[in-house]
């Protein structure tokens, strides 16, 4: 799993690299876009994900102690928090759709000076948060599978490896978001 997570770092890293280059090239344009990001939702989602990592850790701990009910409860809680995150993401994407901020033929930006550069930022926004969301959906599926396995008594204090592995995966997805949030939402918010 660690080796896989290294590949994931390289995978997201390509997009962070692209973001770095363009932000360097178009600092004002990028700063102007962050005013259209819903910082409230973003910040709340950040808290949701961090808390879900906490519940995931508690799930792993329950597995280590052989506590089946607690394990299932914490896995379900983590899954619910993940779904909260994804629902709020949907709300944000819908906002973007209404504002015509989805890149493509329908794109429109309030400040005409920054039309192209803003489109690039939004392209990266959707690519990065979209890729992140796909990973969360996969994570949600994995959590569901873990819940079923736990209910069927597959885990014990001596063997709970899938719980640990998917815990690592979940933490990784959380960490990616922790980098995404400031880079996408908070650029122009220095006062």
């Amino acid at each position, binding site marked *: 799993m660690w080796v896989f997570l290294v590949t994931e770092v390289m995978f997201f*890293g390509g997009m962070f690299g692209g973001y770095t280059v363009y932000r360097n090239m178009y600092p004002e344009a990028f700063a102007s876009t962050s005013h259209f990001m819903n910082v409230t939702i973003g910040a709340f989602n950040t808290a949701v994900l961090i808390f879900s990592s906490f519940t995931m850790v508690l799930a792993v701990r329950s597995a280590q102690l052989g506590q089946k009910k607690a394990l299932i409860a914490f896995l379900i809680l983590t899954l619910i928090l993940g779904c909260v995150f994804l629902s709020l993401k949907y709300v944000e994407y819908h906002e973007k759709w209404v504002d015509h901020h989805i890149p493509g033929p329908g794109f429109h930006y309030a400040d005409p000076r920054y039309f192209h550069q803003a489109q690039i930022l939004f*392209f990266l926004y959707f690519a990065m948060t979209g890729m992140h969301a796909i990973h969360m959906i996969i994570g949600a599926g994995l959590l569901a599978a873990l819940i079923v396995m736990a209910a069927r008594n597959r885990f014990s204090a001596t063997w709970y490896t899938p719980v640990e592995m998917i815990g690592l995966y979940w933490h990784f997805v959380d960490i990616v978001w922790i980098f995404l949030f400031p880079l996408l939402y908070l650029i122009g918010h220095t006062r």
Partner: protein
Amino acid sequence: MRAPGMTWNRLPLFVWGHYATSLIQVLGTPVIAITLVLLGLERLLHAGIFDPTVGGDPVLFQHLFWFYSHPAVYIMILPGMAVISEIVACFSRKAIFGYSFVAFSSIAIAVLGFLVWGHHLFVAGQSMYASMAFSFISFLVAVPSAIKVFNWTATMYKGSVSYETPMLYAFGFIGLFTIGGLTGLFLATMAIDVHVTDTYFVIAHFHYVMVGGMVMAYLGGIHFWFPKITGRLYPEGWAKFAALVVFVGFNLTFFPQFILGYQGMPRRYAHYPPEFQVLNVMSTAGASILALGYLIPMIYLTWAWRHGPSSPQNPWNAKGLEWEQSPTPPPTYNFDHQPVVTEPAYNYSGREQEVDIGG
């Protein structure tokens, strides 16, 4: 899962080579993956990220592309080098000279290979200072490959060399890979690259490494392990003949391309000026001969798989777990008993102690 007695320093260099390869694969492949995802999204959404007409940067694409694609060529060559180590040791009846150096060279190639991608962007508008750095590191990455070539040569020195087909291919590899590698240094030199970039010189360079190098190593490996895999022997006479045909065909195909490139013929041109015709025709003729050289083994290897004479357990008298502790051909799980490692790799001299640097 580790066989009793196995240590890092007893691993065949074949394994070291593949280990280094896997390091590159794990780190490099995700980058090309995300690059293709971004490119695909660009096409799908009709929105630009690399498109200069909408503020995008095509050079960014090149950086992302080559960040993987340069290490990719090391993914391609390291397994070939790994095979050559096995073949040279066996057919010199001698341990590989400087085992540790060859092992660490594989790792060094993997590491340095990630630091040179900018040599594909010398004329793409990259900063002169970045180009200088990439040029310098590209020179550095040639060093571990050269170490391997010197060590294989030193292995043969005062060895008991025999000229079976795998060894013929290994000789081909060592000579042709050296030419390919040296011409790589030409290309890494910025001033020369400006002249020969995007010409047939580049094509000749990488074909010397890929075909003269990797394909020769591949054919050598196929012949070396054919008896092990199939339990049968291929016809040695035909094999030697085919190796010669491949060698002649390959050089006739690609050597003229160095000259063509130097004279200015660009890559990817279907129509070229008449002054380039003679060399082009020569190259085509060579290609036909090379094709024959590939066809002959395809025929006799297929024939030998079904109708070849049975192979003894270890036809080459090679050292190595696959030859000494596994039946020929192997059972489903490769070994019918737990293999035990009791000696250093390539222990052709029969010494019991591990040998220090210098072989």
